[in-house]
């Protein structure tokens, strides 16, 4: 809340002035606003949304505005309202916790279009979009299952929401495909960014025998710890290789740019409709960073096969049989978990250690 900074960026004016009269009018009419939960300097979640914003400016020459470090509380409503009042006709709110505030403001501004990331409530002028990060984690699961010597994956998790639980489950499902003995130890840190605590969690997991560190938090601190301790790690949201050149096996990258550009275009030409988009490898919303050279060629080949399989639809990470920790079958053989099950996921699958906090 205290860290909120207003920054305005005037889009590439040269591009706008060079456009045809009609296009110019549309470009001048369309202003795009962004609300970020973290600072754009987080090198992770908010940073990647900002990369998407920059793509809108660069490719469409639109004026965009962003507000960073916005609290997921009442302050978000104020910020979103301000953007709507200031004449932004397309507003992206890029955190799950902005859901109710986005819908509330959208009701008051029916002519403004809203895009809420990772949420599940829509209205006539509110779209939702998210990325199937679990697809990336499933591929990564295959890699870490092969790379671990101790059969223990350490996983630093933020909050027990379906998005995070899905990632943990996808990882173990992928890992168990190649290594039935592998286990995941999960530590919940109850924060998205606290480098000190994330690093401490990584240390605790390594001390307890984990030789691969994965994370669903936003700072590169766990990778740094992994690098210093000589264990493997997987980057989160963006390529974090600079922090762990030896340790980073790969990274799951959020690529919002194509979606953002397409939606801004739709808003310009009037074809924008309220929709729900959940993109993965196929739409390019989820990408993997370059594989570490230390990964054996056959493991890379396997990972690529899985990635291609998910992209063309022949492989589904949550294909049955899937059992929960108690051994009960949740998804029977021959079926795949539907999106509703995935979006509401609130149980650990077999192979995850510990109890899921409620």
């Amino acid at each position: 809340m205290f860290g909120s900074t207003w920054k305005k960026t005037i889009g590439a004016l040269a591009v706008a002035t060079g456009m045809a009269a009609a296009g110019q009018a549309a470009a001048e009419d369309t202003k795009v606003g962004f609300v970020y939960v973290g600072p754009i300097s987080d090198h992770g979640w908010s940073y990647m949304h900002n990369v998407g914003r920059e793509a809108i400016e660069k490719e469409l020459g639109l004026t965009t505005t962003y507000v960073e470090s916005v609290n997921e509380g009442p302050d978000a409503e104020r910020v979103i309202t301000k953007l709507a009042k200031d004449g932004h006709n397309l507003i992206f709110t890029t955190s799950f916790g902005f859901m109710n505030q986005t819908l509330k403001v959208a009701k008051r501004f029916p002519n403004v279009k809203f895009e809420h990331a990772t949420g599940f409530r829509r209205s006539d002028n509110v779209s939702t979009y998210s990325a199937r990060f679990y697809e990336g984690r499933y591929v990564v699961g295959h890699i870490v299952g092969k790379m671990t010597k101790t059969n223990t994956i350490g996983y630093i998790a933020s909050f027990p929401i379906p998005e995070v639980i899905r990632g943990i489950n996808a990882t173990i499902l992928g890992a168990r495909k190649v290594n039935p003995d592998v286990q995941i130890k999960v530590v919940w840190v109850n924060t998205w960014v606290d480098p000190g605590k994330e690093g401490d969690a990584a240390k605790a997991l390594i001390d307890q025998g984990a030789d691969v560190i994965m994370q669903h938090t936003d700072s590169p601190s766990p990778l740094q710890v992994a690098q210093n301790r000589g264990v493997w790690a997987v980057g989160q949201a963006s390529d974090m290789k600079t922090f762990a050149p030896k340790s980073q096996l790969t990274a799951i990258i959020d690529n919002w740019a194509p979606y953002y550009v397409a939606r801004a275009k739709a808003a310009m030409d009037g074809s924008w409709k309220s929709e729900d988009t959940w993109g993965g490898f196929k739409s390019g919303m989820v990408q993997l960073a370059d594989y570490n050279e230390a990964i054996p060629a056959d493991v890379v080949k396997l990972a690529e096969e899985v990635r291609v399989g998910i992209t063309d639809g022949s492989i589904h990470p949550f294909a049955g049989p899937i059992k929960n920790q108690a051994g009960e079958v949740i998804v029977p053989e021959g079926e795949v978990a539907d999106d509703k099950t995935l979006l509401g996921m609130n149980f650990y699958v077999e192979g995850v250690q510990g109890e899921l906090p409620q």
Partner: protein
Amino acid sequence: MDSAIVIASVLTIMTAATPLVFAALGELIVEKSGVLNLGVEGMMIVGAICAFATAVTSGSAFLGIIVGMLAGAGLSLLFAILTQNLMANHVATGLALTIFGIGLSALIGDGFAGQKLDPLPKGIPGLSDIPVIGPLLFGHDILVYFSIVATGAVAWFLTKTRAGMILRAVGDNHDAAHSIGYSVIKIRYMAILFGGAMAGLGGAYISLAYSPLWAEGMTAGRGWIALALVVFATWKPWRAFLGAYLFGGVTIIQLIIQGYGINIPAQFLSMLPYLATIVVLVVISRDKYLVKMNAPACLGKLFHASH
């Protein structure tokens, strides 16, 4: 749990506690002089970014530590001018300092996120390889040792030196100290600057040793824990040191037991330091004698020489 895990856990707790020790020692001296500076979090985070930026640009971690301390002291100078010369309310000014510090650190830090830094070197070569006691006694970075020395020095200063006695006199009764010729404002200025430098050092430890990178808001409330610690320790340096290890330990132990599959609500553990502080406050406030023994009598009160 085998001994290797216990040793590793103790090492983790020590790095987590060290920034708290620095910030709490600084604030302890400030409060002993009768000044309440709630800006610890702000001074810490400015110290963290200035230390990190300097270490990255110059390549010298030592220079980073110095600049981090100077930055913390610089911010506290602002507080000193406002509260000592311009008679601003301590609480309001301190809160403003925290908000200002968080914003300022984000501004300075623009462009430093995503840069990496090698952590401070750890361990005394040869000695740290001795089993068990090696890593525990000799396996730390230099600032961990300094935090122990600094605690001893502050304790000695407050109880055994004339200057320490004068500082306490100013904190307990500024009018009396003034009437026998001590410059209350000058003494408080020095205490505030020391507090700022120590908070800056705590911040520098976070961004140079604890997690050597820069992320906005990376102190994550540790300044507030340090403030709570001072009260928890009833203004005694070694108790503050112990408290820092206790508070740091609670966080780490919670992470460790999660790895073993035991579930304690993390929210409960993160409120423990504050709960403990409230309990201590209630206990000492119930007894007039205890209040007199511990809390500086002039804490947070404005001083005007003409009174």
